[in-house]
């Protein structure tokens, strides 16, 4: 039963107020893209056992999508941040590196 703080309204929302939305920072591939690109966009998820960047919507609150950095093995949350970004903010990356020295990064 996760708690994630919505970066838009500041509410420490519990999981039942949120909707999960899968992996974050996916790049959309539309017409003209290759089969591999489209597959990567739609299906081939990183699914790491460890640090995961993911989408959540504060569905029963302010309605905004936001992003979270979370460990899928311990459920530790490193931080939440705006959905209007294509990569995790530097301070969250730093925090993860401090807590998970073995982490291989976002790629």
């Amino acid at each position: 039963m996760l708690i994630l703080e919505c970066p838009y309204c500041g509410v420490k929302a519990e999981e039942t107020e949120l909707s999960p939305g899968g992996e974050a920072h996916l790049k959309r591939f539309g017409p003209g893209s290759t089969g591999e690109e489209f597959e990567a966009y739609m299906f081939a998820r990183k699914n790491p056992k460890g640090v995961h960047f993911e989408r959540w919507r504060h569905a029963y609150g302010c309605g905004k999508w936001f992003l979270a950095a979370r460990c899928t093995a311990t459920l530790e949350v490193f931080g939440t941040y705006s959905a209007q970004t294509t990569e995790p903010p530097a301070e969250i990356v730093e925090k993860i590196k401090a807590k998970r020295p073995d982490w291989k990064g976002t790629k």
Partner: protein
Amino acid sequence: MKRYSVFAIAREALRYHQGWEKAWASPAPKSSYDAIIIGAGGHGLATAYYLGKNYGITNVAILEKGWLGGGNTGRNTTIIRSNYLQDPSAAIYNKALSLYEDLSQDLNYNVMFSPRGLLMLAQTHHEVRGYLRTVHANNLQGVKTEWIGPEKVKELVPIINIDGPRYPVLGALYQARGGTARHDAVAWGYARACSAMGMDIIQQCEVTGVRSENGQVTGVETTKGFIGTKKLGIVVAGHSGQVADMAGFRLPVESLALQALVSEPIKPCMDVVVMANTVHGYMSQSDKGEMVIGGGTDGFNNFTQRGSFHHIEETLRALVETFPMISRLKMLRQWGGIVDMTGDRSPIISKTPLGNCFINCGWGTGGFKAIPGSGWAMAELMAKGEPGPLAAEFNMWRFREGQFIDESVAAGVAH
């Protein structure tokens, strides 16, 4: 292997059961094998078993990082059915069901397959149409199912409330051949049979790397050292992506928690399996008398084998509405497992970018019921290097091509 029978029990009883031999051996790994299967769950063991039985390949090791049968094989709700809508699903699940029917005799191990019948309740008109579609499809697939009315449902399940105000029971898809089996026994029975064929089941042996040259696997690094192999099968539901990563390819799979629970045992009251998909709950009664209950998956990636409790509550609300008597039973134990979810919720039994490496994963919430069929098809793939008809459509590239095997289409029923 000494055969099990009532006579063997009697003989052993006279000497206080001191003479039973080990159900399976626990050898140290050899330096190499003709085939290695990673994962000694039901699917991995069944793959090994049919490799030996159908193809005579017995120089096989099954590597298990924990204890055999300790993953999803040992933590599911034991439902067995084959009333699937799509042809490829119906084929493999029906193969599994047919094998289950003879499995106790085949393995000389009572897996307690209990074809007590299985009902999928239709509680909206939309669901009625969906299940009727399934009956028509099943008839053409050679899968015997039928549509039954609410009165017949009540007759089969006296404890059900068929005229609930919100979701009355409008009928059900009924598969009389469906039922349950004892999940642990399936793994143990296969393990004993594999061991008897001379295969090595190596527990507490975690694979830490896959070594390959020129697009061919040469062996695996493990916590018990390097083990060479001519073929590799990856059958590790819940960690498929991690092992695929070691082999250098990515899978269209995500790992989610799926939960189940049992009530305290009561005297027999429900002799069929009931699934209520509109309200997301299913229930059967174990031979011990516990009501075995399952629901839906969590929505986020998770490797902890612990789900979120509100899903248990949702399931129980729905089942209390459907079976009012369970309100005064008590939840004895709840647990979670990690399931692989693919883009169409159907499995992958496939070749991989590595020539002699094969993968079996993505069974979602429907793995247990498929075990014998999955092992059969995976063994064929590993032995021949090409999929047979059972596995042909379950290749890992189908998503890119847009070839979906989507079971949720009829009435929102996933596996």
